[in-house]
């Protein structure tokens, strides 16, 4: 929520700018947006009609870059570097940050070798410095680094822009969570009823014993 | 709403709430 709050003003600003720009100015805006240290969400800007108009023009690569930052990773860029413009160091850093968020979508525990491969990093110190300074201190990720198990346990990761095809998975996860929660509540309810029943039975049994004891005392 | 979708995506990534070895031991 904190991330989204920080995003809201920036996104608003850039969306308004994008709505009145075209051609080279828009390409410049895309560069600014994809280099901005506090912005990790791009779908709102991507949906501004002026951006779509860049398709097929000499500035269509800017649109491709924006799409890459919205949905892609550093690995995707490396595979398509030939057809995409060169990225500045700020853009490279941001794309790598976004790649960590993508990896965290599927796994809570991220192995160091997987991260080093994805982020093009050759040693553990460099990887950990990146995760600490560019991810944890940037507030987009929270977690613990485990050198013995050479992994990064993610406790929180900011959400990336979603493609429509990702929605089904999310809905399924939510349904599963809902079902598990309902089941658990039902089980707890049953346990409460069972506990009440046992308690009543125990009280009744105790009363019967006490009554018998009284009877025997009287008869003696 | 993209912002809400991103928040939901982030929320779902918090599940399960804990997954460490030590937690599994303590939980059991």
């Amino acid at each position: 929520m904190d991330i989204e709050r920080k995003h809201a003003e920036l996104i608003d600003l850039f969306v308004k700018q994008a709505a009145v720009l075209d051609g080279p100015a828009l390409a410049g805006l895309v560069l600014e947006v994809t280099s901005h240290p506090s912005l990790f969400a791009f779908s709102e800007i991507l949906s501004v009609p002026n951006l779509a108009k860049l398709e097929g023009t000499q500035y269509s690569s800017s649109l491709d870059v924006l799409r890459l930052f919205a949905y892609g990773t550093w690995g995707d860029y490396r595979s398509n570097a030939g057809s995409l413009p060169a990225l500045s160091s700020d853009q490279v850093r941001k794309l790598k940050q976004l790649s960590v968020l993508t990896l965290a979508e599927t796994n809570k525990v991220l192995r160091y070798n997987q991260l080093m491969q994805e982020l093009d990093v050759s040693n553990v110190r460099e990887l950990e410095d990146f995760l600490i300074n560019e991810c944890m201190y940037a507030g987009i990720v929270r977690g613990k680094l485990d050198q013995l198990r050479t992994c990064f346990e993610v406790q929180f990761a900011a959400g990336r822009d979603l493609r429509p095809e990702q929605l089904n998975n999310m809905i399924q996860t939510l349904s599963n969570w809902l079902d598990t929660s309902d089941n658990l509540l039902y089980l707890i309810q049953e346990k409460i009823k069972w506990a009440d029943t046992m308690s009543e039975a125990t009280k009744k049994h105790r009363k019967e014993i006490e009554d018998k004891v009284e009877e025997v005392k009287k008869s003696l | 709403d993209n912002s809400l979708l991103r928040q939901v995506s982030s929320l779902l990534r918090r599940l399960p709430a804990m997954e460490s070895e030590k937690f599994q031991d303590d939980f059991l």
Partner: protein
Amino acid sequence: EEQVVVIREKLAELYESEQQWSKAAQMLSGIDLDSGMRMVDDTYKLSKCVQIARLYLEDDDAVNAEAFINKASFLVSSSKHEVLNLQYKVCYARILDLKRKFLEAALRYYQISQIEKRQIGDEEIDEDALEQALSAAVTCTILAAAGPQRSRVLATLYKDERCSKLKIYPILQKVYLERILRKPEIDAFAEELKPHQKALLPDNFTVLDRAMIEHNLLSASKLYTNISFEELGTLLGIPPQKAEKIASRMIYEDRMRGSIDQVEAVIHFEDDTEELQQWDQQIVGLCQALNDILDGMTSKGI
């Protein structure tokens, strides 16, 4: 005796005008404040003790200054003289600072920075002086031993609006947020320090070095579940054996939670809370995130 006192005071004035502070202090310390032969009121005694302490402090002589401040402390509680009381407090804070009792000094500096009056007796209290006291409080807190006590003082300072206007604020923020401090930031901070705050210690680290290493170690404990001595040394910029030694001392003194496996050469950090409690906290966080989404949906009419 009266005449000797006058001569001593005059000589002390002369020494002061020549900035020979310790000599001036020694001249005044020869005055017999417990004389049975003349009437010496408590205010006079207090003023002399404080004056002598202040003179010794000009030469950074904490030992002698402390001797006189201790004498003054018996008199200050019953003193109504606001200027002297303030001077006493400032001296005391500076002595603690010089003696490297940084946390205590910080608290006293902070108290002084919170003075509301702008005129005490004949003395005007200007904003710069209060800002200096606040800055000194922040500096001393950062130099204090990392641990729970320091964290409490850091929180107080960080939440004080006035600190956000200090030059030293960026480093206060990083220290409060328990973030690792890098060399350029430490070097910039070092420029603001006094010589005794950068003095060399028996273990060949300076006061500043030790404070920064301990802070960074504590910051690392928030980021790592465990770390090898080798990597820890690299992170802290010191040899691995020294990193182990400092870590073990901090754990022993209960300023950091963890354990050391010398066989594997690894330090395991422990959280302040147990796993199951952390689970509870994660669930709380999850529910709050869910609430935020629901609030967001409501505000957007969904």
